[in-house]
């Protein structure tokens, strides 16, 4: 059963990759864009995906993996449905980012770089999100939230349940 299952999934991965490559182009410099698109569904890049990308772009797998591990926006390890990134750059820090992080940790019950048991949330820290005027800030998947207080941060998280 498991074998059948994974075969079917590999096929789907392959089609997704083909589609992304068709959209973005086959040039080496499109790698980042392609990886970004492929990560959208699952919030992480699994081995089969990277293998298919390496094949499509005729790149060594190690280079694709090296690229995916270099950029913090990509993950090669499973992440939750929502990736919560709390900014820890200096302006947010001064505005109380540490309290936001503590509240988020307490609410989700995980440490940084951990995923909740129900696979809903992965907590990460990030450097500047570019919204220093509304610090402290955090980002959940592609959505940015500013002017946070610990309570407001928890409320936002609750809205994702």
């Amino acid at each position: 059963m498991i074998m059948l299952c994974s075969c079917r999934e590999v096929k789907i991965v392959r089609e997704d990759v083909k589609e992304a490559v068709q959209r973005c182009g086959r040039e080496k410099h499109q790698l980042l864009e392609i990886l970004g698109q492929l990560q959208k569904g699952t919030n992480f890049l699994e081995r089969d995906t990277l293998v298919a990308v390496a094949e499509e772009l005729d790149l060594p797998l190690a280079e694709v993996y090296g690229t995916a591990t270099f950029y913090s926006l990509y993950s090669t390890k499973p992440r939750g449905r929502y990736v919560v990134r709390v900014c820890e750059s200096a302006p947010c820090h001064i505005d109380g980012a540490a309290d936001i992080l503590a509240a988020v940790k307490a609410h989700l019950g995980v440490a940084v770089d951990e995923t909740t048991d129900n696979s809903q949330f992965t907590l990460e820290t990030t450097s500047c999100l570019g919204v220093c005027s509304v610090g402290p800030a955090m980002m959940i998947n592609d959505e940015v939230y500013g002017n946070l207080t610990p309570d407001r941060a928890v409320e936002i998280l609750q809205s994702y349940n």
Partner: protein
Amino acid sequence: MTDNAVVTINGTEVTVPEGTTILTAAELAGVQIPTLCNHPDQMIKAVCRVCVVEVEGARVFQPACSFPVWDGMNVRTNSPAVIEARKTVVEMLLSRHPQDCLQCERNLHCELQNVSKSVGVNERPFPEETRDLPIDDSSGAVVREADKCINCRRCVEACADVQGVGVLSTVNRGYDTVVSTAFNEPLEQVSCVLCGQCIQACPTGALREHNDIDRVWRALADPNKHVVVQTAPAVRVAIGEDLGLPVGTRATKLLTSALRQLGFDGVFDTDFTADLTIMEEGSELLQRLQEGGTLPMITSCSPGWIKYIEHYYPEQLDHLSTCKSPQQMFGALAKSYYAEKNQYNPDDIYVVSIMPCTAKKFEANRPEMAAEGIRDVDAVLTTRELAQMIDQAGLDFPNLKEEEYDSPLGISTGAAVIFGATGGVMEAALRTVYELVTEQELPALDFTSVRGLDGVKEASVLLPLPNGEDSLEVKVAAAHGLASARQIMEKVKNGEADYHFVEVMSCPGGCIGGGGQPRPSTTERREKRLQAIYDEDEAMTIRKSHENPAVKALYEEYLEKPLGERRHKLLHTHYVQRSRY
């Protein structure tokens, strides 16, 4: 035309073309700047920061390896601030590097050690913070000890660009950066061809061969074992480099002498089976030409190349000659022909190979490389490992009494010795095929068009047929370095290759630049080793494989006997399809 720039380095003026790096300009001014990530054959990386210098007017120190000079530039490489900065850079590198130099294989042959000494490191100001990564000895050929890696990326370039393999890359970022495989898988699980060019590129002990020295010492000490040794062609022109002789020294007769003193019972030459390979491969080529077999036929001597085509072009394996490599033919014959002739039990014969190659260790371990459960070859040592054994034995290598190989498995020709150089197998084959086909003596022995360090070399040879009317045109190509081999394979795959015969050697320059050779194998050293190989060829009395009397005797006495199938069993093999990922 580029303009010249007058640059002052530590007060000395030097005139160089504008755009020259500070590092090169300094060399011309007689000033050595220490480097680690810099390699004479590679691209500029500027990642290790060991070569920082002070450029007048620049805000911060600049890396000499990448910073171009301008007219009127004033550089200091020896101000107290530069000396301190350089030392700090190395101290930081060392804070992540295990301090086991005395036990390290690179001890006294280590670029990091040399740099540490030359910049004057004399304390450990930073706490030791090694990464505690596992040692990967999964392949039995190439060992990675990632803790010793300083992230210079020289192996990455050798693997990806020179070899077109790319199983190593930088992984993660910042302080967590390591050089690794995809998903940190062991080398045995990825499509690494085990050529060892990463070892040649590495400035530290992070990459080395799987050590088989102790196994060989034990065999030599075993009174029940008859231990014979074979030496590959490229070993004789390089081993001297690790034993106090100048680069390019032909040390053949010192090598045989040293092997005898180490206690080998028979000192033989892979050149003997190189000649035999030419006979078998030449016949196979003629058969394919006459009977319409798969063309081009591609040589099969280089085990890194074999593993490469198995991983990267698994659908093209029919192009490979079925001939075993000379190393494996030797082992098979030592345990059959030689054993019978001298009434040894094949089980008691222990075959050791001295190879310029790390992939030969993998080849010897391949399941196919055994006849009736008896391994062809029992242990493979690299040139470097043999030099280590000679050191251990306390032999004064340069001053040994010169000696010859033993008979008959030590008798060989000039055609065999050039197997060690790119184009050599092709040239040796042409010398024989020409005479076999035309039934005439070859007017000039040297096929210079397949020699030299161009990545892909092509030639076309006209063989006048004995009927006096027709002639047979044989189109050949020789590639070295797997990125060059890939160029040929893409043509083969797309049906665009009209060659009849192709030689591929995995390593740049051929076996003389192999992953098991003394470090470093720079282009400069490769050229000297190549010259030594061709000098060795010219000095041989017999220079054509089919004229090797011992090979002729082997065919008459042993291989052509009826009920034989012996050639097939002993000298030929098959290949397996492997995955690329």
